[in-house]
């Protein structure tokens, strides 16, 4: 199984969304959107889609999939790990 670490996701978020918080402060349970979250917006969602394709070669065509994966840091980590395993050559 290909490991996607919490640090990988933190870096993905900080780099793409230009977060001005130290990556270490981003917890696994932190939400990406809405009150008490990282405060991301629709542009960040689009940017993450581009960033994920750049970093992992995984394209997200379905907005519903993005909505589910982009719920929290943890859901994003799990979703990335799943996608990576599915696309890995046998």
């Amino acid at each position, binding site marked *: 199984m290909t490991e996607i670490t919490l640090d990988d996701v933190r870096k993905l978020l900080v780099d793409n969304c230009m977060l001005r918080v130290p990556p270490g402060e981003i917890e696994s349970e932190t939400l990406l959107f809405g009150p008490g979250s990282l405060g991301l*917006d*629709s*542009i960040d969602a*689009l940017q993450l889609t*581009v960033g994920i394709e750049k970093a992992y070669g995984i394209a997200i065509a379905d907005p519903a999939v993005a909505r589910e994966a982009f719920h929290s840091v943890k859901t994003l980590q799990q979703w990335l790990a799943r996608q990576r395993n599915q696309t890995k050559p046998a």
Partner: protein
Amino acid sequence: MSRNVVITGMGAVTPLGEDFPDSWNALIAGRDAASPLALFDTAGCRCHHAASAALPPLSDFSAKATRRLARASRLAIPAAREALASAGLLDAGGRSTLRDLTFSVATTAGGMTFGETFLRGVLARDRAHLLSQVSRYLPQQQILDVQQALGFAGHSVIIANACASGANAIGHAADLISTGAADCVLAGGFEALTELVFVGFDCLQATSTDRCRPFDLNRSGLLLGEAAAFLVLESGEHAQRRGAAPICQLTGYGHTTDFFHLTQPGPDGAALIEVMRAAATQAGIAPAQIGYLNAHGTATPANDGVEAKAHLAFFGDAIGSTRISSTKAAIGHTLGAAGAVEALFAIEALRTGRLPPQLNLETPIPEIAPALVGGKESSRGMEHVMSVNLGFGGSNAALVFSRDSSP
């Protein structure tokens, strides 16, 4: 201190025509200019079409001089020349009869195509022609191109308030005249299609892969376009002194900033409602007196929903009697030129009583469905028309044009 401001000349190059009359006739006939984009490669984009303009020939430029012009200047020079000619301000040699002429201009990207070529050259370490690319990409170079082609100088101002800029440039011209800072102003905007901007809208998923359907429930995004459009504005006395017949008056101008988000209007449309009220108040009219509204109507899901709400709030019960359309379905979103070319369309509707139809409409947003213009509609006896624009950064602007009532 407030002097009345009249419009005495108009000119445009749009995807529908090489001059304003051709553009207007095609618009009224219900043509749209969307076509596959051939100016640059779009292989990596979602969208592959746009409304590009045919460049009018510049008979007084050599082939070499023409090659040195940015595409933006190829659009701007003939549009500005047509505006001066229609105002009776062009001499037999094609030069402005006013040597000192204030110029109020809008653009968002200037001569960006040259900037793109410059960056490609730097990245490829190809140093040939770098100077000629970089020296001609900034917007003031297109201003200089127009000034020198038409033989005038004087105060100029370049407004870059994103997609509202064209309306700002015209409104600012009116401010200059009404406060006595200028007697006569050439005002408008220009925008040429460029890869940087096209890919920018495409990566924001703001462009449609389908047709551009303003105010339709199934709208899916905008169609990018390119154009240049200019007006001659002058004080009533200045026009009268030189015997120029006013086409109409500019009576209202409002501009505000919506602080909600850099690329999205606030969901309640408050800033847009405020800007329309400000323009109507300055014109001294009630919303019900506005016969036709040229709406911004980009056909993006976010814009048109908010805009429909704002129009409903502004017009109230009069929404059933006013007529509204977005001409972006026909010529595309021309960004810095949009406010200018759409102002010309609103003025021509006022002058002729013919109304630009709302193209590509199948399932209209119910709230403003009764106001959207159908095919071959006309409305005689309109006294006032309005044009509104919204832009990135929350820039909003509205203009009111009124039938000329001066003696």
